[in-house]
């Protein structure tokens, strides 16, 4: 049974073993159509293996992978998929236009469609003036842009980007983010694998974090702040009794040199901790609530601190 049309990518019980090493274990993942989906994880988490399995570059040891409702091994599934690989190497003797023409041919586009599409995608990645230049004359950032151009050459329904902002300057990174947002507005599903967490936070509707080949967290970036709140403050006259009472509510509370930090689950718990401190004589001068960032969550997961 093909997955329903609202799902762009579906992985079910996917396992991948290379020799004795388990790269992905029992992974269930669903990327809804029309979303920007961020894939996060430390090095060796299995992200690139997942992406390769989606594209049929790597065969899963067990489980199934569907792409736009078709098995990933079916070449038809890839006709409406764009892909920018990590560390993309280019045929540098080609000009930008020749390079896009080759990839257009591999997508099965007609000569007319290619003629019309090439100037359009070059415009979108800001390389219109370099259509006739050989790729060997391009900077690293320009190569990344032309890589993006080949990925959107076929007007994809699903765009898979593996580290798309790698090698780009801040302006280039913003342009890529803008392009992703623009594509989402056109109904394109974007799967984004990036180490740049701020990029993920800014553009992704949904995020999945992998670690050691397993899915350890998934949800909306906005949800990150709702499950844990980090509080910092300035305090004085900290008593042991006050600390003991407060740590019953916030076990990670730390107070030294006039600074205090603790983490709680919700806003009510903040006032309870503060009340416990104040009633035991602790003086409180300043209090700040911080939404936990994606980076905090990511680092906690990687360091195994999340219970």
């Amino acid at each position, binding site marked *: 049974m093909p997955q329903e049309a609202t799902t762009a990518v579906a992985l079910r019980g996917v396992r991948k073993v*290379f020799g004795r090493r388990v790269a992905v274990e029992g992974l269930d993942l669903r990327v809804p159509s029309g979303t920007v989906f961020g894939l996060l994880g430390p090095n060796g988490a299995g992200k690139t293996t997942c992406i*390769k399995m989606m*594209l*049929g*570059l*790597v*065969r899963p040891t067990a489980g199934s992978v569907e792409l736009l409702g078709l098995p990933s091994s079916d*070449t*038809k*599934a*890839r*006709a409406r*998929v764009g*892909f*920018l*690989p*990590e*560390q*993309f*190497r*280019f*045929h540098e*003797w080609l000009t930008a236009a020749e390079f896009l023409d*080759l*990839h257009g*041919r*591999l*997508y*099965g586009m007609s000569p007319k469609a290619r003629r019309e599409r090439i100037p359009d995608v070059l415009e979108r990645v800001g390389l219109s003036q370099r259509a006739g230049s050989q790729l060997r004359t391009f900077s690293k950032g320009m190569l990344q842009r032309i*890589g993006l151009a*080949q990925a959107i050459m076929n007007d994809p329904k699903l765009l898979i980007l593996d580290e798309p902002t790698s090698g780009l300057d801040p302006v280039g990174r913003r342009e890529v983010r803008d392009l992703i947002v623009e594509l989402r507005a056109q109904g394109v599903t974007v799967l984004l694998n990036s180490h740049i967490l701020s990029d993920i936070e800014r553009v992704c509707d949904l995020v999945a974090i992998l670690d050691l080949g397993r899915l350890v967290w998934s949800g909306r970036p906005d949800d990150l702040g709702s499950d844990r709140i980090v509080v910092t403050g300035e305090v004085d006259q900290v008593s042991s009794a006050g600390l003991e009472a407060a740590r019953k509510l916030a076990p990670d509370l730390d107070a030294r040199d006039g600074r205090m930090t603790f983490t709680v689950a919700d806003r009510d718990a903040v006032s309870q901790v503060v009340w416990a401190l104040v009633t035991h004589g602790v003086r409180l001068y300043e209090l700040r609530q911080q939404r936990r960032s994606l980076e905090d969550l990511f680092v906690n997961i990687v360091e195994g601190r999340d219970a």
Partner: protein
Amino acid sequence: MKWLVLAKFTFHEAIRKRIVLAAAVMTVLFLALYALGTHFAVRELETSPLIVPSVKPLLISQLLLTGIWLTSMAGSLLAIFSAAGTISGEVENSTLHAIAAKPVARWEIVVGKWLGLAGMAAAYTAIVATIVIGIVWLRAGFAGTSPLVAVLALAMQTIVLLSLTVLASAWLPSLATGIGVFLLHAIAMAGGVEEQLGFILKNQTMQDAGVWISIAVPSDAMEKLAAAALQATSGSTLPMPGPLSVLAPPSPWMVGYAGLYVVFCLLVAVLRFEGKDL
């Protein structure tokens, strides 16, 4: 028809590679020197009173066979080293990822690459062999018995080695592929020498060993077929002997066998690549 797109692309890419550029420069140099050498050698043969007239065809034939042997070596090296990284090398440097992620079947990638490289290497060998034969024919009026067969046999030798290289490249890294296939070709050449010596010494074991080696790697057998089609005869069915003469030419069936060998190599390479994680 994506395989045809990839074949055309690979052909264009191959003729832009440095190894091909280097081969082209060296080939022009080789052909110039060969033409010059042929000119002076033939002039000497025509004018020297020391050379017995009946030996002249043998010497001219040996001159041609020398050129053909060098052409065979150049074509073989070009085929092996231009294709050594065609699969494993492109997987290692990620060039293949963007292509294999397109709606292209794996077999189309292998066949397209093979066709592009085979076209380039076979064209190179055929052109150089034709020029070598042409030089001797223009200067000495000698082009063997079947120059067309010779050119086709040499082109087939290139295709055999190229197919073996593509097959090895589906398993081994680029360098190991290049060295491994070159050594296999060297073994095939040694087998060819052993077979010829076995013929002279009437030793069946040596001849059989040479035949089995030719079956395992039929590259040298194609060169022997080419040489047999170009060497001088002295009125009998046996060729006149010389260091590069072929006394026991391979059976014409070897061409058909080499064709099957190429198909087998390509088929196994496709099967291997179908199951390969990129």
